[in-house]
């Protein structure tokens, strides 16, 4: 039997930190707040590591039951945790990256007046995220799901005095709600048809079912609805619009929540429910298509962005698209693999970007940067590592994961692969564009004296750093950068594909979760072209496959280097070219610059009609003319009636007695009548 791991400690530690900081942080010193926040998040990380060490000795999936939550009839939900390879990976990523970002935030947020609030929120986020990851059933997962939404809302709107921040937070929350709507309906369907939300029971009852190859069935519907939820949380088309705005939050938040952990919750959720998806090929296709489209689409937007964080945001969206593409083609382990590496290098990118912004005094526009290579070497080098990683330059973590995805997607359908490769090219292009614009050429910003005065420091956390001069960030910020840099370099080697002489250990590790759960063979042939059969990744692969895989690897590498070259051409050797290009393609450029006017489109299509509807019908119509009217009329009616009846209540005791007597006479008469009638 399993030893008691006390998993519940892992989420509860950050919660305790959040509570302590939230209640007492206002009065306690920054040092105290720092200590608390670091201690609890670090403790969670240590605990996760300890669990990882004990992991081999566990019989999986390891489950912990704490208490009954709901009970109605046969349906019951418990507070239960569920640990297997998948959630272990997520656990390590969340706690590890989270802890690093905590450390980073100390330096970054030091000058902020509501320092304690930030860390309280951050810890709270950790709590919810861990709950989500460790949940033993969909409902507990949903708690975490909503909780991270809340935390992200709070943190995006951290500088709520800034209107854009506040509205960005609202936007994120509302868009997420749309996704949660789908998620909830999926949960209801699960309850309705499987009578339970526990992963075990649901999956046990799903496993024997055969794949719905012919037309959409229950599982398909559930899958698509789950995907809707995932779209909301993981910023996929059509619900990705909140993520770029979310960059209004402090950069560590963007790094932790909107790059590393929260936005990947959707991927986690989809791959957690892989049993369902594998039996719903149509849903899988939907996932894959959405992922592919998002990847490409967001990447193209990324090209034209000039705000450094916006670029990163769109790249995040597109990377998430990659992950969903992987899930969509049934390569869940590849998706999770990319999730992990992405957590490393994208977190690093954001942190480094934050460090850059920090250095130039709150400026976020890349056109006002440049030539920072010398001034902030640590940031430069770490950022370089991250850029190489994300662009899929061989040897870096991103390369392995992205390559894995591309290869598996090719096995599903060459279309995915093609789009994927193009996206890879674009990715490396805009990443290196960012890289060149930021660190090379000569500095295009204002004079040093301008740095970090009110306006800028208000625009991002730079309160304490009023002094001029572009300067390297303090050590407390640099160390996490370095650690993450190392991780994003070596992080990929856990999953070196067989074709490159490795034996995909990561895939093997996750194997027990994903493999063997696929529907029976004849179905898998039935879904031959799409939803790659899991078996292919197991064991040494056939030679032909190896050679082709190598070829495709080569192609993607070439694409990456092409992107690099183009960026070098445009933004390093001949910096004037881009404007020309933009001018020549002004129409396209405008469209891309304005993100394909998606926000405006949504505004015109949904938001404005909704507002008008609510104003005209709901507010002025229903609320004022029906509800308020009803209430008021009820009040007036009561008043009028009582004005009449009041006279009955003369305050004369004997009159009351008279009424009582008359009434009792009536009652007695009635009773006797009934009684005589009865006999």
């Amino acid at each position, binding site marked *: 039997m399993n030893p008691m791991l006390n998993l519940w400690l892992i989420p509860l530690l950050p919660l305790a930190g959040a509570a302590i900081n939230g209640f007492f942080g206002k009065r306690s010193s920054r040092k105290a707040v720092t200590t608390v926040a670091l201690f609890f998040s670090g403790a969670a990380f240590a605990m996760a590591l300890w669990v990882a060490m004990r992991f081999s000795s566990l019989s999986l999936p390891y489950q912990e039951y704490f208490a009954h939550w709901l009970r109605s009839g046969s349906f019951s939900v418990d507070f239960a945790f569920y640990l297997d390879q998948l959630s272990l990976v997520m656990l390590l990523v969340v706690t590890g990256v989270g802890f690093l970002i905590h450390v980073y935030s100390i330096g970054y947020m030091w000058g902020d007046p509501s320092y304690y609030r930030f860390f309280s929120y951050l810890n709270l986020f950790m709590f919810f995220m861990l709950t989500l990851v460790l949940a033993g059933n969909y409902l507990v997962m949903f708690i975490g799901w909503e909780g991270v939404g809340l935390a992200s809302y709070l943190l995006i709107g951290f500088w709520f005095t800034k209107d854009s921040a506040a509205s960005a937070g609202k936007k994120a929350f509302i868009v997420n709600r749309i996704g949660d709507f789908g998620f909830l309906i999926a949960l209801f369907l699960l309850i309705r048809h499987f009578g339970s939300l526990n992963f075990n029971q649901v999956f046990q009852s799903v496993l024997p079912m055969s794949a719905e190859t012919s037309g959409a069935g229950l599982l398909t519907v559930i899958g698509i609805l789950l995907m809707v939820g995932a779209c909301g949380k993981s910023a996929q088309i059509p619900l990705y619009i909140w993520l770029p705005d979310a960059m209004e939050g402090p950069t560590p938040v963007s790094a932790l929540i909107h790059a590393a952990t929260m936005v990947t919750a959707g991927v986690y959720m989809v791959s957690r429910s892989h049993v369902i998806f594998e039996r719903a090929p149509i849903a899988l296709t939907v996932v894959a298509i959405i992922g592919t489209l998002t990847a490409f689409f967001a990447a193209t937007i990324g090209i034209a962005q000039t705000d450094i964080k916006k670029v990163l945001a769109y790249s995040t969206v597109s990377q998430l698209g990659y992950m969903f593409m992987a899930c969509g083609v049934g390569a869940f382990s590849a998706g999770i693999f990319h999730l992990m590496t992405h957590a490393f290098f994208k977190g690093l990118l954001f942190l480094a970007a934050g460090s850059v912004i920090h250095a130039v005094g709150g400026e976020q526009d890349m056109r006002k940067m440049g030539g920072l290579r010398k001034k902030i070497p640590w940031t430069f080098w770490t950022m370089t590592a991250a850029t190489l990683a994300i662009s899929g330059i061989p040897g870096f973590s991103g390369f392995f994961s992205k390559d894995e995805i591309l290869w598996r997607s090719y096995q599903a359908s060459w279309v995915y692969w093609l789009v994927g490769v193009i996206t890879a090219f674009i990715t490396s292009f805009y990443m290196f564009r960012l890289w060149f614009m930021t660190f090379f050429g000569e500095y295009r910003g204002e004079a040093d004296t301008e740095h970090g005065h009110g306006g800028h420091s208000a625009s991002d956390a730079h309160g304490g750093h009023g002094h001029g001069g572009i300067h390297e960030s303090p050590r407390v910020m640099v160390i996490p950068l370095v650690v993450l840099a190392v991780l994003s370099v070596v992080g990929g080697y856990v999953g070196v594909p067989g074709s490159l002489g490795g034996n995909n250990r990561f895939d093997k590790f996750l194997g027990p979760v994903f493999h063997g759960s696929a529907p029976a063979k004849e179905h898998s042939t039935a879904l031959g072209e799409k939803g790659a059969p899991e078996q292919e990744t197991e064991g040494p692969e056939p030679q032909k496959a190896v050679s082709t895989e190598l070829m495709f690897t080569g192609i993607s590498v070439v694409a990456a280097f092409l992107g690099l070259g183009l960026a070098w051409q445009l933004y390093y050797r001949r910096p004037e070219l881009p404007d020309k290009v933009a001018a020549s393609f002004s129409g396209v450029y405008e469209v891309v610059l304005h993100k394909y006017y998606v926000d405006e489109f949504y505004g015109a299509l949904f938001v404005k009609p909704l507002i008008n509807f609510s104003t005209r019908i709901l507010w002025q119509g229903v609320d004022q003319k029906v509800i308020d009217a009803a209430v008021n009329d009820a009040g007036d009616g009561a008043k009028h009636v009582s004005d009449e009846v009041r006279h009955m209540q003369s305050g004369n*005791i004997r009159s009351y007695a008279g009424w009582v007597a008359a009434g009792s006479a009536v009652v007695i008469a009635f009773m006797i009548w009934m009684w005589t009638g009865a006999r």
Partner: protein
Amino acid sequence: MVPSYVPLSYYLLLSGFLFGCGVIGFLIKRNIITIFMSIELMLNGVNLSFVAFAAHWHALAGQVFVFFVMVVAAAEAAVGLAIIIAVYRTRETLNVDQVNLLKL
């Protein structure tokens, strides 16, 4: 002496009569104290029927209920008379028709 019987109905009629007198008194009397006495009269009427039924059904519980009624009556008398005194102190009258402001 010869064992003799009185119909239960006689007792019931008597108690009903007492009760009715009590109600009438409550209705037509103007003096608060008298009204209270009318209430006591009602209670007594009820008690009589209690005891009569107790004797009729051979159930002592009826008599026990009488004790409870008495206790309630005692409490009611204590509080009621205290109220009357308070009313008199503020209103200088014992006439219910002049104590019609629903407050003391």
